[in-house]
């Protein structure tokens, strides 16, 4: 398949925070509709990579293309302006580990915020869209509630609805279930499963290995800022030749 058919292509991405070299040359291609699980030990750079993909972290070097937007980073390369960055981010939905709902807004206002103030959609249209999305995540009866009245699982489902409201081309999940009580994980995973089934392009940083095995088309194993292994979940989890991948996944098999 040609590189142009890919929805996301990343090459030679480097990022350092002070002396800490977090990403050491990442190359990555993701097709439209593909669900990619990004796994690895903590500190391997997977969250940083995800944040680079929507410019919450600006890479030091490298090239990135998502859809029709293309960015080159490095000495001499001009950083895209704030407008361009905002438009680009509007096209990539992000779900955070700690939800990051806006506590001063109601649930429905949280979902309306993007369409209203990033896309300039009218109030009624945004409201209708938000209602439909709350129904989709099963929280239509919580529309008027404030985020602090919700359980963790409900908060995360609102956060997913908020991101979907922008109709992004790709959804990024940054350990979306890591901060949840165990009994609340499945309600969030089932929403994500449903999205995957609808053909949404998704990149999921997760420690839920059985979920990743089930849902992901492709698994990427990272360690020390590099991609060590990639392929189908079965290939990466069960048949990797790489010792670090083997030892990482053996921990999960025992559990």
């Amino acid at each position, binding site marked *: 398949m040609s590189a142009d058919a890919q929805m996301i292509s990343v090459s030679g991405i480097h990022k350092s925070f002070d002396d800490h070299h977090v990403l050491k040359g990442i190359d990555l291609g993701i097709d439209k509709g593909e669900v990619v699980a990004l796994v690895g030990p903590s500190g391997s750079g997977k969250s940083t990579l995800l944040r680079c993909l*929507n410019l*919450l972290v600006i890479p030091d070097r490298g090239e990135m293309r998502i859809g029709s937007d293309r960015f080159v980073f490095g000495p001499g390369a001009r950083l895209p302006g*704030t*407008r361009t*960055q*905002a*438009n*680009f*981010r*509007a*096209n*990539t*939905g*992000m779900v*955070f580990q*700690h939800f*990051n*709902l*806006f*506590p*001063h807004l109601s649930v429905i206002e949280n979902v309306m*915020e*993007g369409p209203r*103030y*990033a*896309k300039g959609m009218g109030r009624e249209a945004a409201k209708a869209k938000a209602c439909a999305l709350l129904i989709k995540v099963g929280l239509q009866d919580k529309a008027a509630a*404030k985020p*602090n009245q919700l359980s963790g699982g409900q908060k995360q489902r609102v*956060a997913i609805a*908020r*991101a979907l409201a*922008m109709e992004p081309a790709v959804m990024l999940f940054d350990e979306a279930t890591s901060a949840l009580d165990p009994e609340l994980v499945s309600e969030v995973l089932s929403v994500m499963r449903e999205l995957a089934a609808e053909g949404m392009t998704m990149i999921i940083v997760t420690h839920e290995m059985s979920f990743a095995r089930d849902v992901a088309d492709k698994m990427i194993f990272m360690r020390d800022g590099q991609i060590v292994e990639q392929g189908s979940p079965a290939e990466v989890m069960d048949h990797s030749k790489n010792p670090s991948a083997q030892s990482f996944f053996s921990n999960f098999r025992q559990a």
Partner: protein
Amino acid sequence: MYIWDFSPLWKYRFLFLEGIWVSIALTAAVIVLGLICGLLGAAGQLSRFRILRWLSWLYIEFFRTTPLLVQLVWVYYALPILSGVELSAISAAVLSLSLYGGSFYAEVIRGGIVSIDPGQSEAGLALGLTPSRVMRRIVLPQAFKRMIPPLMNQSILMFKNTSLVSILAVPDILYQAQRATMDTYRPLEVYTAVALIYVAILLPLTALAKFMERRLKEY
């Protein structure tokens, strides 16, 4: 044994009322102007540009670390010599109190803004909001709630600080008190009355600040 006698003060009641009016009007003016200075100072501190951060730091630290009394005297007597602009006592008082208060407001405002979880800005940016929209729609509404109690406390201090302007012969409460003292030779009674006036004005306001603090703790 000193014999307290407050009765001579009664005929100075209008003098005191005038003083109270001047103090309150002065406080109102320096709160408004101080907040403007504070906003500019905080914006400078949080600016992307090093020069603005540096200038606002200089402003804030200079006014926070020098005594207000020194600033008042300096602005009234020294500034006209340096700048060639004659300042009336009241303008000198307003100018230095506003700048002084602004340096404290700036820290409160900056502190309120940086106290908001960075995840809030990230979530706003991730939605595709521009940084200025994120500031206006997401960060400031939350930060403002947190700032209200300390801003109110600072404003209460501002009212007390106005008592220093009597040194420039601005006719505030304290200045009128000094006049009454010179007439009556009853400084103990006069200053007791002055203290009670300050308490009477500020006690309801401190209670209000406490109440707001509790109200705003929600979410």
